[in-house]
């Protein structure tokens, strides 16, 4: 097992290198010029050129990439072109809101979606099943920002129960922290709930048709132990796979959700950096997201052994 984990962690290195190269190439080759944005409207082309030279953006592509890699192996993600702050500092400033939002969304979504999927499978064909499926279709179809604005309108503007925007660190109290994240969590969780509920239902339907479930029923076992102890445990491998894959969905959704609710997280940092062409920040955040994604998938693979002892690495 340990050898497997070590192999997987080592295998992330070439993956990250490819990601770094692709991201770097895309940024350099795509249109846009941070020097022109910094210089402002009053600047002449010569001013823009001088700023570009000062930023080192006038050097050849390979020189810039080599320098980027060298910094990377020294765990230095560089300095933001615009704020002049280290990228690691900016990421550190922004990581808590994003992690909080994602963790809350995962907890909220799994708590809601798995029982929904289980019940839909158990009551397959009934109105409950159809209601769950309608909800799932809506969750997939309605964009996160629409749900976000709708929630803000109802619960913040009309009912005045929750704030429209912002983030309060957990260190300043649990309720202020939670208050700011309830609406974003529901908005971001809608797609995730839909995804997990659908896969749970499909997998459970398959498992519930197995012979051992019929045997359990014949033994006189109650519905709850059959569903949650026998069936769900065997359906857990594909469900956990989807939960892992869904992290990518969450990352994409966090970008939108953080913008709608003005949460100062990594998603908004990414959008701001892209709009301004703040190359070091974009590279840093994309690399971080890629690393997290690779790591989460590794954890999911390891989790398989818990759900299914027949799996060995």
């Amino acid at each position: 097992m340990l050898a497997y984990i070590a192999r997987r962690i080592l295998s992330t290195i070439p993956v990250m290198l490819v990601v770094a190269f692709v991201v770097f190439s895309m940024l350099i080759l795509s249109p846009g010029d941070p020097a022109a944005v910094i210089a402002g409207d009053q600047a002449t082309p010569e001013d823009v050129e001088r700023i570009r030279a000062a930023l080192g953006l006038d050097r050849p592509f390979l020189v810039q990439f080599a320098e980027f890699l060298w910094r990377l192996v020294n765990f230095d993600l560089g300095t933001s072109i615009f704020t002049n702050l280290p990228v690691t500092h900016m990421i550190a400033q922004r990581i808590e809101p994003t992690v909080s939002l994602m963790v809350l969304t995962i907890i909220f979504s799994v708590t809601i979606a798995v029982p929904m999927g289980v019940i839909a499978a158990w009551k397959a064909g009934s109105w409950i099943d159809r209601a769950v499926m309608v909800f799932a279709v809506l969750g997939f179809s309605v964009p996160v920002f629409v749900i976000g604005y709708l929630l803000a309108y109802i619960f913040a503007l009309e009912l005045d129960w929750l704030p429209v925007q912002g983030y309060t660190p957990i260190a300043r109290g649990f309720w202020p922290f939670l208050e700011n994240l309830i609406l974003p969590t529901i908005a971001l969780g809608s797609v995730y709930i839909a995804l997990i509920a659908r896969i749970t239902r499909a997998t459970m339907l398959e498992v519930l048709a197995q012979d051992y479930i019929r045997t359990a029923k014949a033994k006189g076992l109650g519905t709850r132990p059959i569903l949650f102890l026998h069936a769900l445990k065997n359906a857990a491998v594909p469900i956990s796979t989807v939960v892992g894959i869904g992290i990518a969905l969450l990352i994409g959704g966090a970008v939108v959700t953080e913008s709608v609710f003005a949460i100062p997280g990594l998603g908004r940092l990414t959008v701001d950096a892209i709009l301004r062409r703040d190359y070091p920040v974009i590279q840093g955040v994309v690399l971080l997201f890629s690393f997290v994604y690779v790591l989460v998938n590794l954890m999911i693979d390891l989790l398989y052994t818990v759900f299914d002892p027949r799996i060995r690495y």
Partner: protein
Amino acid sequence: MKRRTFIGAAAGVTAAAATGLSAPALGQGAAARTLRFVPQANLANSDPIWGTQYVVRNSSALVWDTLYGVNSRLEPKRQMVEGEAHDAGFKVRTFRLRAGLKFHDGEPVLSRDVVQSLIRWMPRDPMGQLIPARLDAIEAADDRAFRIRPKSPFPKMIFALGKNNAPMSFIMPERIAKTDPFQPITEIVGSGPMRVKRDGWVPGSRAVFERFADYVRREEAPDWLSGGTRILVDRIEWHILPEAATAAAALQNGEVDWWETPLPDLIPVLRRNRNIAVDTADPLGNIGSFRLNHLHPPFDNPEIGRALLLAVNQEDYRKAVVGDDPSMFSTSHSYWSKGSPMHTEAGAEPLKLRSPERARAPLQAAGCSGRKVVQLHASDFPTIAAQSRVPADLLRRLCVNLELVATDWGTVVQRRASREPSDRGGWNVFPTTWAGPDWFDPAAAVGMRTDGLNGWFGWPTSEKIEALRDAWFDAPNFAGQKRIAAGIQAESFQVVPHVPLGHFLSPSAMRRNVTGLIKSPVVLFDNMAKAA
């Protein structure tokens, strides 16, 4: 008590009882002493010389002070300067600083700080760039006095030191001002009324300013950038809310107090809220313009630019830019900003015709018919995007084969710098907006320069305009300046660096419990108070 405050308190008390975690504070005092402001754009850096965006200038006006500041009559008045003296032949001018001025780090403001700050500012400012050629020296005389030895007269010198358009000549400590003007500073230490709270700055989200207790204000009434700056709140928070709908909701919900530039679409919603007042904070407004590339066909032929002047109807832009409120837009048959001392309609007759029919014949005669024209369209910049569609439609109706390149502002600012033909990554036209002060006079109007490849994007050439501009700086009095500015404009209507699209005001929205706004082209927090 607001419903949410009550719920929060109840939940907090419950949570505290159950878990021992802290409950939210209910005190109103601190909230009343904090002004929460939503600026027009993200404050990504705080160096007003390196980054010349208006959002940076506005934040800098809180942190740094200037030697002079213009008042609402655009007269430069003393700020950090206590007085001036000169010798009989005007060969040496001496400026004395007010006593007791201090930087936020506790150090006194010295004349050597002033000298180094001006040296850093000059190469980045269109007016500042003119100063070195007219100076023999600028030097510190003693701790509170500095001398300027002019080589030739420069009547606009004091105005340049007190003007409000970016970059303003803010005074920094010498060690910071020694930074290359094309590199950002790393320390934010000013002598202005507020200091930056470094740990409160989360770029893209929030910036926090706290009152500087040792600020020495002038004992005069505030008037734009002049007079006594009187900050009545202890803390000013800038909340960066790029999503307009979120900012509108936050203002309605009382989570922020002042939104600098709401979108026109959202104004009716804000006006319906009895707790919100919508007004104009910047009386000088903005100017729309349609910039032409003079390096390549078809706009290398001035006949075509002149024909466009005949066709444009500025009224068409009103609806696109300000919506249904006619008081926010006015036609302006001038290159100079409406309300500026240089404003004139000299040579503007073609712009008053508004006749696409009259334009068609000269356009066809000039060979414009069916020619491909690339227009850059910044779709993420609401005002520019709105006004961009109108000339696009006009060009299509007139004769050209228009390619509208819809992209983000970041790409537009890069592509507009390209001098290549449009089929090799260049461009032919792009709409943009300017702050009113940017077109106040020939000193400010970089877009009016006609020095070809050395000039602003579009690169028009006219030796006559350049000569007039030089003469304007040396004009001995206002009448002379006004006459020369009229001549510059008349010639500009022949060269057509851009087509003026009218003058519009930007609305600003704030909670009614916030009072004391001083309307100015720079966002000012002086005199503003907030009731609990």
